[in-house]
C-alpha cells in the first residue's frame, strides 16, 4: 500500500477545500439557515409536530442529508474531473499508485469534507431548534457511510463526465429531486398510500429515514432496511469504481 500517495492526494484535496472555503462551507451553511427560516419558522410554525417531534427539529436530519449528498458528489466529482480536464491526471496515472489508493485519496477527502460540513450544519441547526440524538453511534455511522457512498458516486460522475455540464447534470436533475422527494421535509407516511409505494423506490428515502431514526427513534422504514440499502449503494459504487479501473474507462486509452 502506497500510504504516502494516498496521503498526498488527500492533503492536496483538503488544501483545495481550504482555498474554496466560501464554496465548501459558507454557502451550505447559509442555505441551511435559509431552509430553517423558510420551512422551520415561517411555514413550520403552522405545522403540527411530526411523530411527536417539532417540525423544525424533524427536518434537521433531512437537511443534513441534503447537503451531505450534494456536497459529497460535487466535491468528489470535481476533485477527479479537474485533473482530467487540465491534464494533470498524467501524474497520478504514471505514479506507482493503485486504483484503490487513488479512490481512497480522492473519495476519502471528499467524504471527510462532507462529514465536517454535516457537523457544521448540525451545529447551525442547533442554534435554531432543540436537537436530540438518541443513537449517536448510529448517527455517526449513517453519516460516514452515506458520505463515503456518495463520494464514490461523485468520483464515478467525475470520471464519466466529459464536460462541466455533465458534472452538474446528475446532481441537479437526479440527486436533488430525489432528496427533496425522499422525505427531507416530510414523513413519507404522510403521503397517500399509492405515492408512498412510489416513494419506496427512491433510494434516498432509506438514507434519510435511517438517519432520522438515529436522532429521534422514529423512521419511515425499518432501520435495518435503511442500513442494508445504504450498504447496498456502497457496494454498487465500489463495483462500478472497480470496473472503471479494470477497463481504464476514460482514464487510459
Amino acid at each position, binding site marked *: 500500500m*502506497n*500510504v*504516502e*500517495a494516498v*496521503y*498526498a*492526494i488527500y*492533503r*492536496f484535496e483538503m*488544501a*483545495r477545500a481550504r*482555498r474554496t472555503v466560501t464554496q465548501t462551507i459558507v454557502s451550505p451553511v447559509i442555505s441551511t439557515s435559509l431552509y430553517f427560516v423558510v420551512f422551520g419558522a415561517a411555514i413550520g410554525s403552522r405545522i403540527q409536530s411530526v411523530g411527536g417531534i417539532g417540525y423544525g427539529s424533524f427536518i434537521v436530519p433531512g437537511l443534513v442529508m441534503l447537503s451531505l449528498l450534494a456536497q459529497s458528489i460535487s466535491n468528489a466529482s470535481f476533485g477527479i474531473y479537474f485533473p482530467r480536464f*487540465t*491534464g*494533470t491526471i*498524467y*501524474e*497520478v*496515472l*504514471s*505514479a*506507482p*499508485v*493503485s486504483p484503490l489508493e487513488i479512490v481512497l485519496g480522492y473519495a476519502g477527502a471528499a467524504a471527510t469534507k462532507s462529514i465536517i460540513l454535516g457537523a457544521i450544519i448540525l451545529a447551525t441547526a442547533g442554534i435554531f431548534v432543540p436537537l436530540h440524538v438518541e443513537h449517536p453511534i448510529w448517527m455517526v455511522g449513517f453519516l460516514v457511510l452515506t458520505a463515503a457512498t456518495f463520494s464514490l458516486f461523485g468520483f464515478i460522475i467525475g470520471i464519466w463526465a466529459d464536460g462541466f455540464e455533465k458534472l452538474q447534470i446528475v446532481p441537479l436533475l437526479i440527486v436533488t429531486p430525489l432528496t427533496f422527494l425522499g422525505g427531507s421535509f416530510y414523513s413519507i407516511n404522510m403521503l397517500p398510500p399509492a405515492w408512498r409505494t412510489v416513494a419506496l423506490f427512491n433510494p434516498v428515502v432509506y438514507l434519510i429515514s435511517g438517519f432520522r431514526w438515529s436522532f429521534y427513534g422514529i423512521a419511515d422504514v425499518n432501520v435495518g432496511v435503511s442500513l442494508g440499502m445504504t450498504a447496498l449503494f456502497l457496494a454498487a459504487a465500489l463495483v462500478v469504481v472497480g470496473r472503471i479501473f479494470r477497463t*481504464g474507462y476514460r482514464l*487510459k*486509452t
Partner: protein
Amino acid sequence: MLTVMDDIIEISDLSKKYSSGFVALEGVHLTIRRGEIFALLGPNGAGKTTLISIVCGIVNATTGRVVVDGNDIVRDWRAARSLIGLVPQELTTDAFESVWNTVSFTRGLFGLRAKPAHIENVLRALALWDKKDSRVMTLSGGMKRRLLIAKALAHEPRILFLDEPTAGVDVDLRHDMWQLVSRLRGEGVTVILTTHYIEEAEEMADRVGVINKGELVLVRNKADLLHELGTKRLSLRLRHPLARVPEALAAWRLELSSDGGELTCLYDAKAARDGVGRFLEKVREAGIEFMDLATTETSLEDIFVSLVREKR
C-alpha cells in the same frame, strides 16, 4: 549477461492501435542503455508520445512488452513506475497550488516521505527557488516548463522522459536545460527525450532513434549515424567566377552559386579522402584557382529529413 545488465529499458514488439483505428505504433523493438541520453526523433504524429506514454503507464499497449530495469510494466508496475520521471509535452500544471506544494505532491505520489533538502536542490537547480511560494498560475511559460521538470525529479528517478522539453522555450533556457540533462547524466540518470529540434539531439544525445508513422526507422550512435549517412560539402571560393561547371568536373555532384563565385562539391563522407582528393586534383588540372575552401558536414536534420522522406 553484461549487455543485459547494461540495458535499463527493453521494449519488444510494441504496438498500439487506438479505438479510432489509428495505429500509433507498430512492432517497435528498442533497448535503452543504462545512463545514456537517447533522443527519439520524428515528425508530428510519428508515435513518440504514445511510446513514452506506454512506458510510463498512461496508455495501454495493444501488444508487446516493456521491461524497466527488470520490471515488467504490467506485472511489476509499481517497481517499474517508481524508477521513472516524466515531463509531459503539454504545460499541464495545477493553477492554484504553490510551486513548493505541487513539487512535494509529486514526491508523495511516488510513495516517498517529504525531503525538503532535495526539493530545495531541485528548485534551485531549475532557478525556481525564488518562486517556491508563488502560485503556479503566476509563473511564465518557461517557468512552468521548468516546474514540470522539477516535479519529474521530485522522486529522484533513475530514468527521465522528456517529451519535447524545449518546445516554445527561449534559447537561454534551452541551453540551461541541456546543462541540466548533462548533469543528470553525470549522476547516472538515463534520459530519453523526444524533440523536434535536431540540434538538441545533436548536442546532447549518445544515441538517436528515428520514428516515423509508428515504426522505428533506425537506431544508431549519433556519431556513427552522422558518419554513416552524412554527406560532406566542400565549398571553394573562386578567384575568377565561372559561367558554368567545366566538363572535366562532370563526374562530381557540383553546385555553382548564381554569381559563379562559389563552387560546392557534395561528396560521400565514407569515401571522403579519395573523393575529395581526386576532385581537388581535377580542379587544379582544369586551371580553376580558388582563394579559400571550407568543408561542412551534413547535420542530423538533413539525415532525418531524408529518412522521413524515404519512408513516404
